[in-house]
C-alpha cells in the first residue's frame, strides 16, 4: 500500500503510515533543526507534531526554508 501526496507541488508516492517527520528525513537539502517549516493542507504543523502527523491520500504538503529576501 502507498499514499499519493503532493510535496511542494510535485506528486509523490509515500509508504503507508508516512508522517511529516519521515518525509522530511527523505528530502535532500532539508536543514536539521531551525530553518524549516511545514504546512499540510494549508495548516502549519508544529515541529513537535511532525512525528505524530500521518499523511493521508491526497495531502498537499509544503516544506519551506529560509531564503534571501526583503
Amino acid at each position, binding site marked *: 500500500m502507498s499514499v499519493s501526496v503532493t510535496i511542494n507541488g510535485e506528486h509523490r508516492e509515500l509508504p503507508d503510515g508516512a508522517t511529516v517527520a519521515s518525509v522530511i528525513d527523505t528530502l535532500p*537539502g532539508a*536543514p536539521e533543526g531551525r*530553518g524549516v517549516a511545514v504546512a499540510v493542507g494549508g495548516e502549519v504543523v508544529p515541529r513537535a507534531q511532525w512525528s505524530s502527523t500521518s499523511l493521508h491520500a491526497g495531502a498537499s504538503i509544503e516544506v519551506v*526554508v*529560509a531564503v534571501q529576501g*526583503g
Partner: protein
Amino acid sequence: MSEQIPFTIAGRPLGSRLILGTGGFTNHEILASALEASATEMCTVALRRLDPAARGSILDVLDRAGVQVLPNTAGCYTARDAIITAQLAREAFETDWIKLEVIGDDRTLLPDAVELVSAAEALVDDGFVVLPYTTDDPILARRLEDVGCVAVMPLGSPIGSGMGIRNPYNISIIVERASVPVILDAGVGTASDAAFAIELGCDAVLCASAISRAHDPVAMARAIRLAVEAGWLARGAGRIPRRRYAEASTPDEGLPLFDQGAAAGAADISHNSPQ
C-alpha cells in the same frame, strides 16, 4: 564606534538604525561582507519551497554575522497567505517577529491596505510582533498602530525602484503622529536617501536593493551605514529653517566704505566711482 544612540523596537534594543534586506545579493560571500560593512544588527529573510539543489543556508550566514533574523511575508497577496506564512516563519525561526508584507499586484508591489490591516490585526491577536510594510499614508499608518503593530514601515517609493522618498511631507506626518518606531522601507536608491529618511525623523531605514544591486554592494553598505549615522547627527544638530531669500553669513558690521570722494585728500579714484 557608532555615533548612533541605540533605539528599541518592542523593547528590543538595536545598536544600528540600518536594517538590511538580504534579497538580491549574488552570493552568500558578498552578503557576509556587506553585513559586516553595514554594521547592521537585524536582517530580513523570506520563506520559499525547499530547493534540494540549494547550497548553504542563509541562516548560517546570518548566525555567523551575529545579526537578528526578521522573517517577512514577501510574495503574499492576501491576508490568509500572509498569516500562514507568518506561522511558518514562527516555526522555522522560533521568533514571533514578522515583517508583514501584503502586496496588491506584482507590477507596483504596493501594499494592499485592506488585506494588510486585516492580516496585522489577526497576527497581533495571535501573539505576533508585527512590523508592517505600508504606504506613505499617515492614516493607514495610524490604523496599523491602532491594531497593535510595534512599528510602521512606510515606503519611500516602490520596492526596488530606487526613487528615494517621493513624499517627504507624508513621511514627516507619519513620524510626528506615530508613537511606535517608523522605519523607512523601500525606495532608497543611494546613501543620501537614507540620510534624508533619518533627517525627516524616521527611527531607522531598511535597505535591500540599494545595497545588494549596487555595482559594489560592500562599498554601498558602508556608504549607507555612514549616511544613516550622518542623518542621525544632522537631525540632532538641528537644521536651519528654510528661507526664500538669502541671509548673509558674513556680518555687515565693520564693512569698509569705498564711497565716492568721501575722504578729504582722497586719491583720484574717479575711474571706478560713478559721478
